[in-house]
C-alpha cells in the first residue's frame, strides 16, 4: 500500500515535469513567433517572400510619362472625352510594363501579364484594359476574358489556371478644377 502511494506520488512528479517541459516548449515556440504552418513541415526551408508590390512606383511613373509635351496624366485630363486617343497613348508604355500574346500563353505562361486601368472623374469613368480584347483564346490554355474590371479565366477541361500575382495601385490627383481624379491600375501576372 505504501509502495503504491509512493509510485503515484512519483508519477505525479513525472507528469508535472513533462507538462512543464511541454509548456516551456510551447512558450519558446510562441515567443519566437513560429507559426503552426512552419512547424507542420519543418524540413521545408522558411523563405522570405519578396515584396512584389512596388509601392505605387509603376503608376506614379506611368502618370509622369511624357506624352506630347505634357505628362500622361495631363494628357488624360485634356483628352478625357476621347477614350480612343487616351487608349492609343496608354498602350505604348503599358506594353512595356505588362504584356501578353498567344505565344507567351503557350510557351511561357508564368510571364503573362494583363492590365486594367480605371480613371474616375467626378462625372465619368474611363476603363482601359490590356491584353487581347475582348477574349483571349489559346491552343492549350484556358480562355481569358478581359471585358470586365478584371480578367476572368474560364477553365477548359483539364486546365484550371489562376493568376499567381495580382497587384493593385491607386492614386488620387487633382484636375485643373481641383476635383480629385481617382486612378486605379491593376496588374494580373503569371498563370499557374
Amino acid at each position, binding site marked *: 500500500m505504501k*509502495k*503504491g502511494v509512493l*509510485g503515484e506520488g512519483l*508519477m505525479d512528479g*513525472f507528469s508535472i515535469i*513533462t507538462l512543464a*517541459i*511541454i509548456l516551456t*516548449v510551447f512558450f*519558446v*515556440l510562441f515567443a*519566437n513567433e*513560429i507559426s503552426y504552418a*512552419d*512547424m507542420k513541415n*519543418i*524540413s521545408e*526551408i*522558411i*523563405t*522570405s*517572400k*519578396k*515584396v512584389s508590390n*512596388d509601392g505605387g*512606383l*509603376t503608376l*506614379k*511613373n*506611368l502618370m*509622369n*510619362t*511624357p506624352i506630347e509635351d505634357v505628362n500622361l496624366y495631363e494628357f488624360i485630363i485634356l483628352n478625357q472625352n476621347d477614350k480612343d486617343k487616351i487608349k492609343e497613348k496608354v498602350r505604348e*508604355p503599358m506594353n*512595356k*510594363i505588362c504584356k501578353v500574346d498567344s505565344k507567351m500563353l503557350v510557351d511561357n505562361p508564368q510571364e503573362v501579364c494583363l492590365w486594367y486601368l480605371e480613371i474616375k472623374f467626378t462625372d465619368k469613368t474611363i476603363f482601359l484594359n490590356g491584353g487581347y480584347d475582348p477574349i483571349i483564346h489559346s491552343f492549350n490554355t484556358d480562355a481569358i476574358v478581359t471585358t470586365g474590371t478584371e480578367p476572368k479565366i474560364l477553365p477548359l477541361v483539364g486546365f484550371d489556371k489562376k493568376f499567381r500575382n495580382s497587384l493593385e495601385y491607386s492614386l488620387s490627383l487633382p484636375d485643373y478644377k481641383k476635383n480629385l481624379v481617382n486612378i486605379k491600375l491593376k496588374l494580373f501576372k503569371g498563370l499557374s
Partner: protein
Amino acid sequence: MKKGAYMISGETLLWINRILLTIIILGAVFFVVNSAIAREININESIADLTIRKLYYSSECFALQNVVIEPGEIDISKFTEERLRNCIGLNYPIKLELENNEKTISNIENYRDAFNLCQVGNKQKQCLFKSQQYVLVSNNGKVSYDILKAEVIVQ
C-alpha cells in the same frame, strides 16, 4: 516457483510503461525544439529585392536629384559601372540593362562567370533573382520611359 526465476510484478510493468511513455514524450519534445532551432532561414530573395530597389530609390545610386530625390527616375549620367560599384559594392554581382537606352552595366567584370556558377546550383537553392521595373530616364532634363532589367546573384 523455481529457484532463480525472475518475477515481474504488476506494479513494475506499470512503471516500465510510464517510463517508456515519458521517454517518448521527451523525445518528441526534443525533436520539435531541435527542428525549430535548426531551421534554415533564407532571406536571399529579400536581399536581392532591396538591393535592386536601392538602385532607383537612392540618389547615391541612379535616382535623379533635382533639389528633391525623384524615386523611380534615373539620371542617365549616373548610370555607370563605377557608380554602381560605389553604391552597391561587390558583394552581390549585378547586371543592369536599360532596354530602350540599350545600356548594360555590371558591378563586376566577370559577371558571366558568376552567372554560370549560380546556374549550376540554382535548382537546389535559388541564387539568381531577376526584376523588371518601369522607370523614367532623365537625360539632361529630357525625360523618357524605359524598363530597367536587373539580375542579382545572392549566394
